[in-house]
């Protein structure tokens, strides 16, 4: 409880930072949403051009819900921990945080909560409203998606834990390279492909589809959304959640291990 009280400040800090630069943050979010709008129109044209009502098991309403939920999931779970860390390494602020009597990982975690809360308000809630509105519009259509909320929430929580520790590790890369800009651009491209935010992974050719569902990025965005749409059930749901949990545990362990090693090295360099 006292831990929560102590670290809550970092969440509040992140929130007030985002609120101070409100106009800028919202413009960035708006830009990201535009990408989803492009995809919406592309899929609309694709479904209009197709002779069958479903593509790879997706009806058009399901695809639209997929796009919205996928955008929201990524915004909620990719909380920018890597940028926080890389920035502090670059400008040296990390040294101050090392001498403070706080757990650095917890500090960044609570900072990430702030970003996620903010994104929940400005992306999550509008996404929920949009999906609710669309479901109302499509009432009675045969291809109506049925949402599996509890499965989604479970998978979302795992995705948050995974994404946070993965981004924490990625941010630490700034300790060993000065090429963070290029690296993070490359990471973004790979993540957007394999997390299914560009196209559902079922559209990949056979071997790539198999492979990609085992990669960590699928667990970050694709698994929660497929669980929401009820496309993962029974054994396949348990399998996917298992992979997600395994990756989350792995990256939680890796982030702790890498942090300890780097801090030790840093202390040695400092004399």
């Amino acid at each position, binding site marked *: 409880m006292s831990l929560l009280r102590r670290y809550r400040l970092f969440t509040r800090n992140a929130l007030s930072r985002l609120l101070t630069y409100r*106009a*800028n*943050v919202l*413009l*960035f979010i*708006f*830009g*990201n949403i*535009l*990408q989803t*709008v*492009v995809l919406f*129109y*592309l899929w*609309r*044209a*694709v479904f*209009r*051009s*197709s002779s069958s009502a479903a*593509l*790879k098991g997706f009806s058009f309403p399901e695809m639209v819900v997929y796009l919205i939920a996928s955008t929201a999931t990524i915004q909620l779970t990719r909380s920018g921990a890597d940028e926080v860390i890389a920035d502090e390494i670059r400008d040296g602020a990390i040294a101050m945080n090392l001498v403070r009597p706080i757990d650095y990982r917890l500090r960044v975690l609570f900072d990430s909560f702030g970003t996620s809360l903010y994104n929940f308000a400005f992306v999550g809630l509008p996404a929920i409203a949009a999906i609710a509105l669309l479901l109302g519009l499509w009432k009675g259509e045969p291809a109506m998606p049925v949402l599996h909320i509890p499965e989604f929430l479970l998978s979302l929580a795992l995705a948050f834990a995974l994404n946070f520790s993965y981004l924490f590790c990625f941010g630490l890369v700034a300790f060993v*390279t*000065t*090429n963070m*800009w*290029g*690296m993070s*651009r*490359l990471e*973004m*491209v*790979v993540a*957007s*492909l394999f997390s299914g935010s*560009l*196209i559902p992974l079922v*559209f*990949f050719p056979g071997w790539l589809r198999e492979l990609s569902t085992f990669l960590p990025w699928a667990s970050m965005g694709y698994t929660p959304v497929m669980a929401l749409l009820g496309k993962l059930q029974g054994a396949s749901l348990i399998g996917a959640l298992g992979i997600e949990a395994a990756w989350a545990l792995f990256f939680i362990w890796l982030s702790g291990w890498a942090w300890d090693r780097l801090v030790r090295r840093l202390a040695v360099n400092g004399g």
Partner: protein
Amino acid sequence: MGRYRRLYVRYMAQHLKGLMSYRVDFWFGLLSFLLNQGLGILFIGLVFSSIPSLQGWSFFEVLFIYGFAQIPRGLDHIFFDNLWILAWRIVAKGDFDRYLLRPVSPLFQLIAERFQPDGFGELLTGLVAVGVALVGLHLSLSPPALLLGLLAILGGVFIYGGVKLAFASIAFWTKFSQSWLFAAYRVADFAMYPITIYGKGLRFVLTFVLPFAFTAYFPAAALLGKEGLLFGTGSAIIAGAACSAAGYLVWRLGLRAYEGAGN
């Protein structure tokens, strides 16, 4: 004019030296843009595996428009990239005063100072996609069509450049305007596909508000014979001139506001 040309070469040499010392970043940057634009092609390919045509556009036609879109975008990225930095930190950190002290046009200094080879990632993807599409369509461009196409690309570069200049200049008032630029660039993403798939409102925006449709759809469709050749390419050139003029106007207004605040 000769002086500016000599200066530009000097600036470029200076910048290339800098890039040589960050070679890894250079390759990562290039690779990321190559992959990013490649993903778009992958998307088109995967989608077309389940449909014969996209509302009347064949795979190679869509590929041609997508590839054509990357060429002016890449060239703009190579030559006008410092405008992003203006929007990001040049004004905010107070570095802009430097440009005002030298006896050369501030806009020239700003543009010349940075040469961004990352843009070759887009340029290369675009050229390859256009080449593959032309072979796939069994289409060869006549010399006049080729010339008009090249002029339209130049027009496209200045559409991007002008829009970028206008949005980057917002930083003169707000200190930071990268978010504006980012949002404007996402609007440009719409122009990489046939604009006939969008609703009326969106088409209006892409044609008359942020006229990115002229960087790709209109000239590319003209070269494919789906729009009048002179209309498609000529409109791109006119839009390029109009955007540059608009961008320059906002820049001038911004400069005035900036000087007013500083002194």
